[in-house]
């Protein structure tokens, strides 16, 4: 149960952030808003929404990334003020932020394990899976950084498709490229990353 006073605080903050992010997108130049300034509030919101989604009492506990990104959009931006381009900027940032959320999550798990968290160890079965997941996410993140050096757009495609769960056409809209480009970038990036991770 959330107390009314706590809600009010959260509301004020959300409303301020919403005004700020909307303005950030609306007043951006042709290159779009500064990703550094946009990713941060989106990151906070996604983390919060993911926490709510995964900790709610009923139903399954799977992470639905596409839902998170759409909810964050509604929460953080007044869609009627920014248009289709603004929407694209936002989704690109949200995809990046989603990757960051998962990476940080994975890092924390690793740290907790090194600290010898007793509860985790007793959960048997589960432990192996979560640890493997954390390790894979961190490896993938490292490989993506290396890929970013040679083909930054392919990284964006991976962020949209894999981390934000966007479809090919949504990704094409978001990155303002053709669907064909998305498909070939996606295939190339997958192959490259697969090889990179399998070699290790």
């Amino acid at each position, binding site marked *: 149960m959330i107390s009314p006073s706590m809600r009010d605080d959260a509301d004020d903050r959300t409303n301020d952030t919403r005004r700020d992010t909307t303005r950030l997108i609306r007043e951006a130049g042709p290159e779009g808003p500064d990703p550094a300034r946009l990713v941060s509030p989106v990151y906070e919101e996604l983390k919060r929404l993911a926490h709510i989604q995964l900790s709610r009492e009923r139903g399954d506990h799977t992470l639905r990334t596409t839902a998170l990104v759409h909810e964050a959009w*509604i929460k953080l931006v007044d869609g009627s003020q920014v248009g*289709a381009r603004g929407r694209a900027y936002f989704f690109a940032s949200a995809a990046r932020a989603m990757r960051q959320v998962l990476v940080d999550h994975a890092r924390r798990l690793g740290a907790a394990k090194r600290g010898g968290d007793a509860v985790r160890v007793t959960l048997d079965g589960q432990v192996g899976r979560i640890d493997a*997941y954390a390790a894979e996410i961190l490896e993938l993140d490292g490989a993506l950084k290396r890929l970013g050096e040679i083909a930054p757009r392919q990284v964006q495609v991976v962020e949209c498709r894999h981390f934000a769960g966007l479809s090919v056409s949504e990704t094409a809209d978001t990155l303002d490229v053709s669907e064909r480009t998305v498909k070939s970038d996606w295939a190339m990036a997958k192959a490259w990353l697969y090889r990179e991770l399998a070699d290790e």
Partner: protein
Amino acid sequence: MSDARHRLAARFAEALGLDPEARGELLSRVAQEDPDFADELRSLLAAHERADASGFLGPLDEGPASEVLRAGKAPEPVPGEALGRFRILKRLGGGAMGVVHLAEDPRLARRVAIKLLSPWIAADEDARRRFLREARSASRLDHPNVATVHEVGETGDGRPWIVMAYCEGPTLAERLAAGPLPLEEAERILTEIVSGIAAAHQLGIVHRDVKPGNVVLTESGARVLDFGIAQVDGAAATGAGPLGTLPYMSPEQTRGGEVDARTDVWALGAVGYEILTGHRPFEGPHDAALIHRIREEAPEPVAALRPEAPDRLVRVVEACLAKDPQARPSSATEVLTVLRAGGKGGDPALPWRRRSALRLPLLLGTVAMVTVILGPRAMTDRSAPSPPLPEVDRSIAVLPFESIGGGEEAGIWARGLQDDLLTGLAGVPSLRVTSRRASDAYDAADDPQRVARELGVRLVVEGTVQTLGEELRLNLRVVDPLAERQAWAESYRAELTAPGLLRLGGEALADLFDWLEVDGAAHNAGARITGPDDLATWRRYIEGRIHLEGRTEVGLRRAEEEFRAVVEGAPAFAEGWSGLADALVLQALFGYADPAEVLPGAREAAGRAIELRPDLPEAHATMGLVVMTLDRDGPGALWWLRRAVAMQPSNALAQQWLGALLASLGQLDEAGVAFRRAVALEPNAPAARLALARWYLFADSLDLALEWVRAAEALEPGGPVGALLEGEVLRQLGRREEAREVLRRARELPGVNPTGFPGIWAELAAVNLELGDTLRSRELVAEIGRDMPPFVLGATEAGLGDWEAALELLAAAPVLPVFTHILRYHPLFDPIRGDPRMEAILQRYDSAWGIASPR
């Protein structure tokens, strides 16, 4: 990106589009120029293949990312490698299910095909077990027209594989691509396929994915591959979609319904049709259109495409393609009997024809014929007859519960419990549940047979609620009007407290689910019944819902007040926020409040609701409507509404909104599916019928448009919207005198004037012009005046056939997104649809919706 990288990317994309042979050629050509470059390319292509086979970087949503990523490291076996005692020779192909390798069995010195299940599916314990069970059951099958399953096993890390006979030869799909078959060969191949499937049916094995790609034409005859495997595929997709291969899928499969031998019979019909005609019976530009045709439309008669095809074969094939499984031959064995008897000369009686004489019209698959068997229906004030929807399904209506004693109090709880059951049932994908508003027209005193007939449902739920001091009792029963009996009944009692009511509602729903044999996933919906912690707040919530249903201005304002009080008292009760959002949205929708003023609040409230309960369908629908009307964010709105109907397929409003949005975004076929569904869910709602009628007008089915608009008007006579639409349809049909008559009467309806309904004047002007009364036509246009929005004036000119003026006005008019579907599909604009100026106008509308114009 560097130049070298660009070159690599370009070559990589090129190579991916080539078949293995051409790819090899490309690689060796590249290798001559630059061996290092070729090595890099080869290595990437190999990695791509492995990445794809293992589901690497699949969507995070579909399961723990750990499994996806771990699977990414389990490479497919390579030629030369051993798998059990088998030696891999080469990769034959791959799909969503896994990869097929050609291998050698050294012990028996024979070649076999090994299918290795993809690690991603293997990770799903249920799917893995089902795969093994099905494969083992298929291994009992030994027939010359079936690819025998030799062995079933698992790799060390738990990936199942099956070893099948390796059939050498082209697939039927490849053969058909080369052109139509000679009739004699066509009959032989069809008989062989049917006989293979018949052998399976005799053992109780259903194939589920019969298609030309699964038939190999060997020297010794046709052989059917991949028995019983499709099911696993679907299981792994966790209900994300129906299984099978779409063009050959039966209507019941497209609905994700029960599948039995008759599903294979349908697919045999589809394959037979293609063998005879060279065409698939159903085709469409995209999945939604294809599904619509499979469910609703009769294929082009075989005789029209291949007149020389023997009548006997044609009739067998067409009988297999009956929409209703009951009307098909019951199994491949039955089909085979007829085929063989025919082969010996003579024309055998078709046994299933006799059995299903009553269903013959369904067999022909035409809507008009269904009307004949249903016969004339009683006219009533509550439900005027509608053209039937050709849908035989599991459908149910929940009538308002009767309350005994306890006065108003019992009435409130009766209403609340009815709501709980309705909401729970509406979330079950395999059920059609008519809306709350649809069943509100009836009560327990009504004859269930009449209710079932008028709402087009199979079963009717009735309930009685009684409060006795601190206790509440619910008697629940399901009536099966066809059998004229009570099919199920149960009594519940609970303490009259919030937790007591919650438990009671949950129990009743769970029992009902059990009785209806609702499967596991949907069963969890039982847990979805929630309520606030205290009884008084809950009461207010139910009262809010009651006010909401009336759709009156006063009612909606009252509903808003109640819900505001509810969320204040219980801010963590998601349904309270969702109710508030609904109250606000409906006020905007019915014109009782300024959308710009109330919709932001609706968005806020729906957002709260979703945050508290991400599985609340109504809030998703509301969010979709807000994003659609306030933001004009087409893709965003589509996402919310699609999600709403996926979570709650029986949400009539969401279906209708989805239909409207899809029509605006240029997806007419899919819009039709939604509008049809909306009518099925609220059979007695005039608005739903009108929306469907308008869709038929847009889809160029004028007769059906007329039928539906009249059905809507029969429910609610004297509505100007219906009259205008009827006039439009009649004029398009060329029935000008009738159109003029209808429109003249529409003009006289109370509340109708040229400012509010300029369309009536415009249509009347157009029809007068067509009838040669130029003068009257001009007068009518003058009555509209020039102060109208330019869009309206443009549409008027289009009606009068002055295309230049119409284009000029429309080009200058500001974009009004609510009219997008009219501009896109109304026959009014047909003559200028190809005009580049019209294209430019439509592009402005597309960009207003945030979508790219079709390229």
